[in-house]
């Protein structure tokens, strides 16, 4: 995995919301990269900044009040935060595409499926005829496993089920062969069987088309099934990052441990489910110390006064916790990993 090229790099990204109640740093100095053809998961509770991260990459943070206040987002050699409006439009849908949580409302109810798919093609493929675009749209609908694609082109979103609409969204996102697909909670609004189908489809397309997927979810089950690497976010920061097997088998950060313990286990039916005490702090409300300290059963003095770094605890594993400060691998190894 580490020999694959990083195509999307987020470096020190900071996105804040300027509200009447002050500046809220929804995303605070996060670093991660998406490699060619991989599936990277970002997990965290609602409000931890995962959606804002994805919207920042797309340049779609609602503004005002939101604004990217620091850091870089590199797509290949393009710095996305520095692009003009026009250049950014060329990236959206073409290099980086996105699908959203709500398939029921993400398609425009007043235009046919065909119209919306062809629109996505014709924006980026200059010189294509409508006929070519239509053929490509039908091809994509078939690729995402929708039956009678020809008829679907003439139908409206309300004639389709939620699962079908999400397939249409995926088809629309992939229609211009983007390098990266950002999927923001793509299965949250769907029922479980459809969820599994959509995830299988995304995994399959990821392998067939070699499109990297940045999967944003709060559902650890989804991560375990689909992702190769995981980034765990808490209160606007990355608290742990590593390969999926390691995170699930040997979680390091107390927050990740807590999350994994909160997943119901079918083997022990009667046990009361574990939950992390307390609530996610409001972004910007914890300024000193570790943001998780108040809810952490391992917290000690230092946690309350200093903000821990993201320690590299193994070649491909990072944790933001003082418990692992002394386990950090040498900077020499780290440079090896990054190069």
């Amino acid at each position, binding site marked *: 995995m580490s020999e694959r090229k990083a195509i999307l790099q987020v470096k020190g990204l900071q996105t804040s919301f300027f509200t009447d109640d002050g500046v809220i740093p929804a995303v605070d100095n996060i670093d991660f990269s998406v490699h060619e053809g991989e599936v990277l998961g970002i997990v965290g509770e609602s409000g931890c900044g995962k959606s804002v991260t994805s919207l920042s990459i797309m340049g779609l943070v609602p503004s005002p009040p939101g604004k990217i206040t620091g850091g870089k987002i590199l797509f290949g050699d393009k710095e996305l935060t520095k692009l003009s409006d026009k250049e950014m439009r060329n990236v959206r849908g073409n290099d980086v595409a996105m699908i*959203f949580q709500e398939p029921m409302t993400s398609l425009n109810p*007043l235009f046919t499926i065909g119209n919306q798919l062809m629109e996505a093609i014709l924006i980026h493929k200059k010189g294509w005829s409508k006929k070519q675009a239509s053929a490509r749209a039908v091809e994509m609908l078939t690729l995402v496993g929708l039956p009678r694609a020809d008829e679907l082109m003439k139908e409206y979103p309300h004639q389709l089920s939620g699962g079908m609409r999400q397939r249409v969204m995926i088809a629309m996102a992939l229609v211009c062969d983007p390098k990266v697909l950002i999927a923001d909670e793509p299965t949250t609004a769907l029922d479980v069987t459809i969820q599994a189908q959509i995830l299988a489809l995304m995994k399959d397309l990821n392998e067939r088309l070699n499109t990297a997927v940045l999967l944003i979810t709060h559902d650890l089950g989804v991560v375990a099934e689909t992702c190769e690497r995981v980034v765990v976010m808490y209160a606007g920061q990355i608290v742990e990052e590593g390969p999926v097997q390691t995170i699930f088998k040997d979680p390091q950060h107390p927050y990740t441990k807590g999350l994994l313990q909160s997943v119901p286990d079918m083997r022990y039916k009667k046990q009361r489910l574990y939950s992390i005490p307390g609530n996610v702090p409001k972004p910007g409300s914890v300024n000193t110390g570790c943001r998780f300290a108040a809810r952490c059963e391992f917290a000690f003095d230092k946690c309350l006064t200093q903000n821990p770094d993201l320690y590299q605890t193994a070649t491909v594993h990072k944790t933001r916790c003082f418990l692992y400060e002394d386990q950090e691998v040498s900077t020499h190894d780290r440079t090896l990993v990054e190069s």
Partner: protein
Amino acid sequence: MLHYIGRRLLQLIPVLLGMTFVVFMIIRAIPGDPAQVILGQQATKEAIEALRAKLGLDNPWYVQYFDYLGGLLKGDLGESLRTTTPVSEEIWPYLAATFELSLFAVLIAVIVGVNAGIISAWFQNSWFDYTAMILALVGVSMPIFWLGLMMQYIFGIELGILPTTGREEVRNPIDSMTNLYVLDTILQGRFDQLGIVLKHLVLPGLALATIPMAIIARMTRSSMLDVMRSDYVRTARAKGQKMFWVVYKHALKNAIIPVLTIIGLQMGLLLGGAILTESIFAWPGVGRYIYEAINFRDYPVIQSGILVVAFIFVMINLFIDILYSLIDPRIKYD
């Protein structure tokens, strides 16, 4: 769809029937007597009685009402007491004049109002937004007769660039076929006269357009603001679509439906003849026609004039309802 239209047209019958009754009763409740008005103050009692008998006004009200309804069923709108011409013939030129003026006013109101609303929503809280919304507020609360008089004073008298009254120049009358002068002059290729006709439309058109324009702008803005926050607008942006098309294609089509309702109602009101505006600008429209009929207690003209106007109002709203289903595939009437 045809089924639905048929049903709506059937529903029209009780509405119009109820309306004829109300209008019939109300105009007879106004003090004054047509026979007296026609014969003048000096007329003898006998002469008035004779005329009343001749016009059928001496019958009990229900006999008069059912006579009138019977006539309507045969397509007879009655005869004017004043001119003895059938109302159905007499009303056409007035209707056409009102139609031309209202259409002009509605076009201005829709084009300016909808775009002002869109741009205000697109650039919410910008100087354009603030200016447009303050102007809209002023527009909604503007007394139209005052605005009309001011415009006549400024553009007609002080600047002398626009005619203040009527539809045409007295010395250069239009040889009309349809009574829609814009259409007439175009059909005849008389573009010099077309210019004159359009000039005559400007001031009354603007005066008439002011309130609808302001209402439409405010409605469009709030509807657009709602839609601009929706998921499909974000999707359209995520595709890489230009903001212009995101706004004018994806957002506008969704936002326009509540605005259409308002446009329909306003258009109906304008076609009913804006009595004030038509009086100020001496526009020979249906509003003035009915207004003068009221002064003369010309019962058949009042009754049938209002009936025709009400019919047009209801038809426009039916048309708007049909338009909904053409815009939104989720709206199905059958």
